[in-house]
């Protein structure tokens, strides 16, 4: 191919491009006095507003600091000492390596994907200097504003008197000196960047990858420097005794793996940059992302101890039947020029699938759930088969995709129906904490998104039956509070299932989460679908695309672009809604903060310390949501929503 195809414009400005003439000159910054006057005190009304808002902010900020760091009332050790509980709940300590391996897999995939998105953009040095300055200012303000500890009398009763208040309000330099140093260091870095690079600060872009990686690195390195405290269990005299060393570094078994994670991410990124021009690399990375959830599930829960007699007598034969029989049907259906008969057969398969579900629901035939799911999948493959018509190898590839799909699905269904055998624990109640939150959100989003897209298409389909089914489902789900859905799936679902089939509680509520989130996703995507102009459909028809191709290549990509903002909103909601799992008794992140820690009395007494945990949980939720929101803004900009 000619070089014309390789000249993709890069947006990262390299150092050679400094002083690009077409950039507008930097706005001359006003002297501070004039800036204040122009922006804050331009009229009497504005002056009053500025003073009012300023006072309000001051009051709120100080109140928040007091609330969070009032030493007599708060005990942040309750969070630090329970970090393990927060992150992984009751996951057996001696098998932590599995969690680390899972994390390493995700981070490596992240590194590959970052290497593949070449034009992720950059952040100017000017911006970075401003970040350092703002952070420094916040630290300084917080240090100056935070109040001292409340005094208690000999009986432990809080003392309220003017003298005490004066002491509390005074800045205690000795206590806070470290924070003044931190603020000064931040200011110094900001100044060094700002003045060291002079006018060039506006043109030097640090690629976003590097900034993120540096932030990750700084956090990891801080584990080796800052004394976050060491809490855990240590073996002594054949028994596990609690370790509590608030004034030391975190445990080596935490520090070292995080350092490894940081290195792994960097190596993955580097390998990715070496391989990114190879054609197969992108496909392989995408496939790995899709395979990651089942694989991680396997790593975290370990291979369940399958009932091998059942596997050989039922599971393997069923897989073989669908792989061979379904493969043969699909091979035939993807024959070029098959025409109408192919569509009729595909439609027939759809009806068989539907009836098999109906029969299961009515209890006529206690067919295995796996067979029903496989029928639905087969019908879906059959319906799109004519798009993969072509020569022999293309058709065989299509059949290969089918076999791979049912292999994964069959594995999943079998695995979900078999209890985990993580050493020593015979149920899934050891899962919890942030690990579970992440897991649930990941599964919820990855599965509900395609489901939502299918529902949206069904709701806009011209076949009334699809429309009615999708509309009913969406409206029913949207009319029910999420918590009801959760109760239904955790308590009632097992009662509805045909005999012989069981769904673990976590699997049940995950299904509930997926269905709930899918209904909302569907509405968001439908909004996008409706924004596509008729001309796009006509142009797709006119060049001869089939309706499926038209949907997949023209309509959906555009609809999804339009729906990015509401879809990300939904993703953030789903992420946060996992906290409702606390109510139905799953030990998620929030429940640990709200119920577990406030009732802990050994080895340290944390009874009543609920607020620290809740603040910590809020912070983590905020960070996740904010990252998603930022990413969506970037995505919107990249895809040029509204401009192209």
């Amino acid at each position, binding site marked *: *191919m*000619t070089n*014309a*195809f390789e*000249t*993709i414009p890069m947006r990262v400005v390299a150092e050679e491009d400094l002083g690009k003439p077409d950039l507008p000159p930097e706005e001359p910054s006003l002297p501070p006095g004039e800036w204040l006057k122009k922006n804050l005190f331009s009229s009497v009304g504005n002056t009053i507003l500025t003073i009012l808002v300023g006072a309000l902010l001051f009051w709120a900020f100080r109140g928040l600091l007091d609330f969070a760091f009032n030493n007599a009332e708060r005990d942040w050790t309750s969070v630090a000492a329970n970090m393990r509980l927060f992150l992984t709940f009751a996951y057996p300590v001696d098998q932590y390596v599995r969690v680390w391996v899972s994390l390493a897999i995700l981070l490596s995939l992240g590194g590959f994907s970052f290497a593949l998105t070449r034009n992720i953009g950059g952040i100017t040095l000017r911006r970075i200097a401003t970040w350092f300055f703002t952070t420094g200012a916040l630290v300084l303000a917080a240090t100056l504003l935070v109040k001292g500890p409340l005094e208690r009398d000999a009986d432990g009763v809080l003392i309220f008197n003017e003298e005490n208040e004066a002491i509390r309000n005074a800045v205690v330099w000795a206590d806070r000196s470290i924070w003044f140093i931190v603020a000064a260091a931040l200011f110094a870095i900001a100044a060094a960047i700002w003045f060291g690079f002079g006018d060039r600060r506006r043109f030097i872009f640090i690629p976003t990858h590097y900034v993120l990686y540096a932030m990750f690195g700084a956090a990891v390195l801080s584990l080796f420097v800052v004394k976050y405290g060491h809490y855990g269990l240590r073996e002594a005299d054949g028994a596990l005794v609690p370790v509590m060393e608030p004034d030391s570094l975190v445990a080596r078994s935490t520090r070292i793996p995080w350092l490894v994670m940081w290195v792994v991410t960097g190596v993955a990124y580097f390998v990715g940059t070496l391989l990114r021009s190879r054609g197969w690399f992108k496909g392989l990375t995408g496939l790995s992302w899709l395979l990651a959830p089942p694989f991680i599930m396997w790593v975290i829960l370990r291979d369940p101890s399958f009932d091998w007699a059942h596997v050989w007598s039922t599971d393997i034969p069923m897989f073989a039947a669908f792989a061979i029989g379904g493969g043969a049907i699909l091979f035939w259906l993807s024959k070029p020029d098959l*025409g*109408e008969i192919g*569509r009729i057969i595909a439609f027939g398969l759809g009806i068989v699938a539907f009836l098999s579900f109906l029969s299961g629901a009515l209890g006529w035939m206690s067919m295995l759930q796996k067979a029903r799911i496989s029928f639905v999948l087969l019908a879906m493959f059959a319906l799109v088969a004519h*798009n993969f*018509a*072509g020569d022999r190898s*293309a058709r065989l590839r299509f059949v290969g995709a089918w076999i791979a799909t049912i292999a994964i699905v069959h594995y999943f269904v079998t695995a979900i129906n078999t209890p985990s055998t993580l050493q020593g624990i015979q149920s899934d109640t050891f899962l919890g904490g942030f690990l579970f939150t992440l897991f649930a959100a990941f599964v919820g989003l990855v599965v509900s998104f395609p489901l939502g897209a299918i529902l949206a298409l069904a709701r806009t389909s011209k076949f009334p039956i699809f429309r009615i089914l999708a509309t009913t489902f969406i409206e029913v789900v949207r009319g029910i509070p999420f918590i009801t859905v959760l109760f239904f799936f955790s308590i009632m679902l097992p009662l509805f299932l045909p005999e012989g089939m069981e769904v673990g509680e976590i699997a049940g509520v995950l299904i509930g989460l997926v269905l709930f989130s899918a209904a909302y996703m569907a509405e968001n995507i439908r909004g996008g679908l409706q924004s596509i102009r008729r*001309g*796009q459909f*006509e*142009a*797709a*028809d*006119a*060049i*001869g*695309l*089939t309706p499926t*191709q038209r949907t997949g*290549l*023209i309509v959906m*990509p*555009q609809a999804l*672009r339009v729906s990015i903002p509401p879809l990300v909103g939904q993703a953030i909601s789903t992420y946060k809604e996992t906290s409702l799992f606390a109510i139905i008794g799953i030990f998620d992140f929030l429940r640990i903060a709200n119920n577990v820690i406030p009732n802990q009395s050994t080895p340290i007494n944390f009874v009543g310390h609920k607020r620290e945990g809740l603040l910590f949980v809020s912070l983590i939720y905020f960070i996740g949501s904010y990252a998603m929101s930022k990413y969506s803004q970037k995505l919107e900009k990249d*895809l*040029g929503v509204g*401009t*192209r």
Partner: protein
Amino acid sequence: MSISDATTAVNEELASRDDMIECVGVDKWYGDFQALKGVTATIKEREVVVVLGPSGSGKSTWIRCINRLEQHQGGQIIVDGVELTNDVRNIEKIRSEVGMVFQQFNLFPHLTVIDNVTLAPKWVRKMPKDEAEDKAMELLTQMGIPEQAQKFPGQLSGGQQQRVAIARALAMEPRVMLFDEPTSALDPEMIKEVLDVMKDLANSGMTMIVVTHEMGFAREVADRIIFMESGEIVEVGTPEHFFTNPTEDRTKLFLSQIL
């Protein structure tokens, strides 16, 4: 040679060619409103037909019936020997042989120019990517815009977009091209670049039906002109006949209004 002799000569030459599109008594209703009333016309191979007529006369409706963007309710439409019925296979076959260019371009805004052009060859004709891209570059060069290949439609001028749209239709190697007012949405200075491309296409022997208000184009390029009004074909003839010696009063009235 008088005009009527010339007309006869052209008609005789045309009559010797194969039929490309045959419409017999085509009816089309929108609810109670009849947009096409028994439209009967035959378009020969390599013929360029310009369709004229006042707004709302059914020009667009007619040519959109030819590639089944609209469904006719009466009569027959036969394209290259295949009759348009509800049979999906026929519709797919005809759509891949009939290219269409729209007034509003209707390029796919999320795809680059080269992807717009290669999409159908890759997915409908199952052409390998490299081959499709080579061919697309050839077409874009022919349209005079090879350097725009990696841009998105939104970054191009109207005239460039319309030429991409023509390249996109040509990439399927159609036997017939339909143009529905291809220059009506363009600024005057861009009309010529699109008309020039269309003239080249006509000279290369493409069968074309062009709905347009560009009288110069009609006069210069058309083999025949079809004049429609109120869903009917009122008059058919060579450009000479049509512009100098129309027989129907309604044609005369139309010409007096626009010329």
